[in-house]
């Protein structure tokens, strides 16, 4: 076997090995096609743990919303099984799944007051009278909307509507809550505020949440685990830090944050690190997967992990000589446009104070650690 695997691969399409008790939802070999020709979801195996905040992240058309709709009961899988607490639900209509759903545009009922909206799910669960009223008030208090119960949705701001949608999805204590890009319509400041608030509520109540977004910073902020979707497949399933620091393929490396992608070839291994040779023959010590390269081998390096060779970076294994092409001042940081390894182009982001003296046209020595250089073969 000529494949050298230096890390345990944690890809979503491995069969789940978790026990039923801690698994809330399990997708097993789920496929979905709308037109009978192309698969929107190719072969989905995914286990959502009880009490976790799992985000499905990906560009539009990646299959993440389809997956959420299949879980909510609005779409049926073409093949495969969906288990909710160990029970197959793929043929169960949405009203019998006991899942709270927060829709992209909230889908509040415009002809009902806030209180009637939040009380709506209770009516179908036999909760009436004083008990129902109390639960509605509790739910509204939880999202800090007490006192707005008699308003109609149209009289609320976008953020308030978002809170009503959340209260309505939680008031009946569902098994889990699904959210389809719920913050997309809010402005940046409010969105960041709501991210924290939703996360806090989820943690306080220990609810299982499955969240869909195309905003990577939102996913990194809120999630316990992130499943990155692309072309109907889960590209990587890990916690946010792992996802950011150790992307497993070029799509994930490029989709989450900024990245320099540099062509290279395998030179060997050394002390558990992968040695790669760049275009001009220089070698770099890297980490990552060294498998057979089906579409070339590359090194990914984040701009902020590539710094000037100062004392603080003495431990970094790699030194790169580069010519400064351009310098952009960004306030707290300086963005350097560099040429290295012959004519490869790369970008570095350094603190403004460090970069102050650097002039375009000069030559600098940059440093980065092997852990920040990720060798990717896919």
């Amino acid at each position, binding site marked *: 076997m000529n494949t050298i695997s230096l890390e345990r691969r944690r890809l979503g399409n491995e069969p789940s090995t978790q026990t039923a008790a801690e698994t809330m939802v399990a997708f097993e070999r789920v496929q979905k096609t709308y037109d009978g020709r192309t698969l929107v979801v190719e072969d989905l195996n995914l286990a959502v743990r009880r009490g976790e905040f799992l985000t499905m992240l990906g560009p539009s058309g990646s299959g993440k919303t389809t997956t959420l709709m299949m879980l909510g009961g609005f779409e049926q899988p073409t093949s495969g099984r969906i288990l909710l607490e160990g029970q197959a639900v793929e043929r169960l*209509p949405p009203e019998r799944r006991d899942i709270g*759903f927060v*829709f992209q545009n909230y889908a509040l009922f415009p002809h009902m007051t806030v209180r009637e909206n939040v009380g709506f799910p209770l009516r179908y669960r036999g909760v009436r009278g004083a008990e129902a009223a109390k639960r509605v008030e509790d739910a509204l208090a939880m999202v800090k909307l007490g006192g707005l119960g008699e308003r109609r949705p149209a009289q609320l701001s976008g953020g308030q509507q978002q809170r009503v949608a959340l209260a309505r999805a939680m008031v009946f204590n569902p098994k889990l809550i699904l959210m389809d890009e719920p913050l997309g319509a809010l402005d940046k400041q409010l969105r960041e505020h709501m991210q924290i608030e939703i996360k806090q509520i989820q943690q306080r109540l220990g609810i299982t949440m499955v969240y869909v977004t195309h905003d990577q910073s939102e996913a990194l902020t809120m999630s316990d685990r992130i499943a990155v979707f692309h072309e109907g497949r889960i590209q990587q399933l890990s916690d946010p830090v792992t996802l950011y620091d150790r992307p497993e393929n070029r799509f994930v490396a490029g989709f989450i944050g900024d990245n320099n992608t540099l062509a290279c070839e395998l030179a060997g291994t050394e002390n558990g690190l992968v040695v790669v040779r760049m275009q001009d023959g220089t070698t770099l010590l890297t980490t990552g997967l060294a498998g057979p390269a089906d579409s070339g081998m590359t090194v990914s390096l984040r701009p902020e992990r590539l710094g000037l060779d100062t004392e603080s970076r003495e431990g970094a294994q790699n030194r790169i000589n580069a010519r400064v092409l351009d310098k952009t001042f960004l306030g707290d940081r300086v963005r350097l446009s560099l040429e290295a390894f012959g004519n490869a182009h790369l970008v570095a982001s350094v603190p403004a104070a460090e970069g102050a003296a650097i002039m375009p046209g000069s030559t600098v020595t940059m440093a980065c650690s092997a852990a920040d250089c990720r060798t990717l073969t896919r």
Partner: protein
Amino acid sequence: MAQTISLTIPAIRPDLGKALKRAERPNRLRALALALPALLFLLVTFGAPIGVFLTTAVRNPEVREILPQTVSALDGWDGQAVPAEEAFVALAADLARAKANSTAAALGKRLNYESAGMRSRIMSVTRHLGSFADGPLAPQFVALDPAWADTELWAIIKRNGAPVTPYYLLTAVDLGQDASGSIGRVAADQAVFLDILGRTLWIAGLVTAATLLLGFPTAYVISLAPARVAGLMLLMVLLPLWTSLLVRTTAWVVLLQTDGVINQLLLALGLTTEKLQLMLTRFGTVTAMTHIQLPFTILPILSVMKSIPEGQMRAARSLGAPPLAAFWRIYAPQTLPGVAAGCLMTFILSLGYYITPALVGGPRDQMVSNFIATYINRDLNWGMAAALACLLLVMTLSIYLAFLRLVGAERIKLG
């Protein structure tokens, strides 16, 4: 260094509003100038004719213009006894002039509305004017027709000396004035208009209900259909609108007549053993009107349905509502603005139907418009036609206003 932040509170300028108005004036004038041709066109071709026509409902020129001397001779008459001789003399003089101007027939026709037999009395006096002997005219009038000794007859002439009359409007709601001028119900055999009014409302209501029953599911299906299929379905809904109303109505005549397509089909299928009377019936009228009105009900409902986000039903389902409950509690209430607009449009248009009841309906299915047409075309009674038109207008407006009050203007969406 301490930094001072100075806050300048802008002084309230009283001339600001004026300045704003001045700045916006060119825009407003331009907008007005653009709309002016249409406004003028509407005023000349729509507003003015309606206004003039409606005054016809109360105008009362005949007695005043044809019998001026009689009217002034009756000025001081108390109505207790038969008027004095000078009234008869004045009437004879007026009628002599009317004979010369050939206006006696018009007078006779107008007075005949108030009391049957007046036409023949006027015409008889006019004919005998030349043969009246000298001396008091009153006995000779009475000799010609004893009714001339009746105070009621003279009261009618005196009352109609006024330039306006409530007669047409009262008649349109089955009321009349007796000799003393007090208002009361007319005799049962003449009380037809309230019946016609009720029938008009009933037929319009039936048509509205039928279009809603057929149109709501159709609109729902179209709103859910994929874009291309929906376009085709909408085309089929609109197709009848591009055909002349008269053509569509006559098509229904072809279908509904005793030897028509429907009867032959029913017989061939063995569903009936004898031919059904479909033409000249209420059923035929309502069916044909429903067909014609269907697009008017469907279109507003469809446009509102299309604006209801797909997520609404999904949200209701995910919250626990079964499909039917989700439809009735969440979807249907949100279609109300469209349902209201569509029904209002069909109801109001149905109130004014003319050709369809005239061709497809029987005598018991004729609506207010048919009677307006009859008064204009056959009886040349413009006053009565105008009074019924007034009634129709008032009815339509009050239904519209009541509807706005009940449903609210903001809840009616035409598109």
